[in-house]
């Protein structure tokens, strides 16, 4: 056996181990969701049951948490996508001297620990509310409002990065042409910029919703007396482990895998379409060249 073969075997072995580490815990958890003992256990496997799946949907607090997470996720999409778009547009227009400062400020929430974003949001709105003597049922103390804001602080930055990537390929002459032809700025925005950015709007909305749905660190501080799926889950898991949480995990894994695959396929298709467009454009310019060349050749 040559050194090359030994090396290749070792690399293969390592890759298998790595993916075992990655998927092993998820597989064990999924198996325990179908096993009968009341303590989640994958081994020994006693009998197949779907009891834990039924139990999840009979659990009012859990279902309430899921609904709250959905509402907050929708709220975050409505706040973070427009802010991210505005942030990206300002980034393309801001004076080069100010750009590094602006970039540092708006990207800093991505790197700030989520706990700190939650705390600062909570403290800021609480003090503002106290200062103007707001009611306790006003927005300043509302768990929903604070959670949407706290999460949007960093999720807007994610959205902005998605928009910036797309804007790099935007041809500003289209806007100028429309303006010269008498379109208003709002029309240019609606008819040229937004359609061009549509894929970025879609993917940033998906990203924002998923990031909001699985957020825990920021939410824990801002949510106060309400509960979301993640805070309910964490409370349950800390109290003790039950197989119905494993069942919920199986559902979430199933949904996310389906979603991730759909998202990947959409992205691939988009990339393929763009490649095709570029090919057509290239072929068109090559045709142009071919069309003109005989004349040049004759002249030469």
């Amino acid at each position, binding site marked *: 056996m040559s050194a090359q073969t030994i090396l290749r075997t070792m690399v293969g072995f390592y890759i298998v181990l790595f993916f075992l580490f*990655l998927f092993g815990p*998820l597989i064990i958890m999924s198996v325990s969701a179908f096993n009968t003992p009341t303590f989640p256990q994958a081994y020994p496997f006693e009998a197949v049951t779907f009891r834990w799946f039924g139990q999840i949907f009979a659990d009012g607090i859990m279902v309430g948490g899921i609904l709250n997470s959905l509402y907050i996720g929708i709220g975050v999409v409505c706040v973070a996508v427009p802010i991210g778009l505005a942030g990206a547009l300002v980034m393309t*227009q801001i004076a080069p001297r100010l750009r590094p400062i602006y970039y540092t400020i*708006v990207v800093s929430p991505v790197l700030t620990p989520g706990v700190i974003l939650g705390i600062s949001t909570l403290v800021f709105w609480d003090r503002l509310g106290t200062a103007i003597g707001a009611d306790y049922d006003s927005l300043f103390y509302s768990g929903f409002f604070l959670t949407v804001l706290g999460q949007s602080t960093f999720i807007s930055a994610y959205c902005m990065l998605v928009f910036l990537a797309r804007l790099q390929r935007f041809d500003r002459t289209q806007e100028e042409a429309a303006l010269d032809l008498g379109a208003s700025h709002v029309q240019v925005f609606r008819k040229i910029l937004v359609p061009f950015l549509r894929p970025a709007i879609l993917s940033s909305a998906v990203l924002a919703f998923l990031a909001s749905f699985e957020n825990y660190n920021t939410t824990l501080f801002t949510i106060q007396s309400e509960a979301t799926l*993640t805070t309910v889950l964490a409370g349950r898991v800390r109290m003790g482990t039950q197989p119905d949480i494993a069942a919920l*995990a199986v559902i979430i894994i199933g949904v*996310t895998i389906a979603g991730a695959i759909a998202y990947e396929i959409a992205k691939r298709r988009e990339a393929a379409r763009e490649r095709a467009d570029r090919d057509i454009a290239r072929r068109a310019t090559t045709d142009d060249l071919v069309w003109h060349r005989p004349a040049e050749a004759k002249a030469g």
Partner: protein
Amino acid sequence: MSETLLVLPALLLAGFGLAILLRRPAGAVGGPGFVERNGAVIAAYLVVAVGFWVLLMIVLPQLYMVDFSFRNNLPLPKQGGPEDVHTLKNYRYLLFGPEGSDQAFNWLHLKVFAKTIVASVLVTFFDFCLCYPIAYYIAQVARGGSSRLLFVCLLIPFWVNEILRAFAFRIIFGTSGVLNTVLIGMGILPPDAPIDFLRADVALYAGLSYAYVLMMVFPLYNAIESLDHNQIEAARDLGSPWWRIHWRVVMPHAKPGIASGCVMVFMLAAGALATPQILGGPSSLWFTQVIYDQFFQGANWPRGSAYAFVLLVSSIIFVMSAMRLFKVNLGDIAR
């Protein structure tokens, strides 16, 4: 005090709006200003959205948190009264503990802080060692279909909630969990003495490394993928051993990715809350848990803010030193 609370944001907002409105695009002297370029409606949308984000969501909350951390913990009626003054006592508490305690330092909290930082560095290092070979393999060695398949396989666990991942580790590492059952079944452990992996923090470190593996793989993959494979071939043809190819060719090229992955993993590990809550032993704490307890068990928001600020500053120091060490800038890290 309430007036300053309101005047400050208003002034900043106005200043920010003016700065944008009055500014001319550099390079084009006398070119169109911000409003002419975007139209009044769109310009207003941009200023309001970005102004709200930068001021009311990012800058002011952080400033208020820092200001709050220098205040006394007062009940509502006493706020704004003579006792509402700035003080260092919350920071003093982190260092020296309650006044009149018999210990010179607040060892309990300081130890938790040190453990959080050291353990996060170790988790980061471990994840780097774990991910580098995989990222290199997928980016440079694997071809076409298999590379794409491996990449999709990496993505799937990334979309599973952090709490559920920690829960999975609890099923494995619990006293009657899978690992103990298997070890007892194989006769390695006596049936009456399972190992308490949770108490020993083994589950915590495994869970943290697992949770952030992917934040390390993706930046590394992106960086290594952009390296021209011919450079590796050239180094090999010139007789360089495999470790020197990595040390002198691949790693220098992947430096922004390495910095990005390390910063992300460190920040996420140091700021983790769910994983330590679920997988930490009963007697061991993570610094974020201490912060949480100050807020919701001790009802001492100023002290909690002070602790949060200490965590933030140490994170910033880590990011800055990583950027200095790898000679990269923020744009390379946050992508």
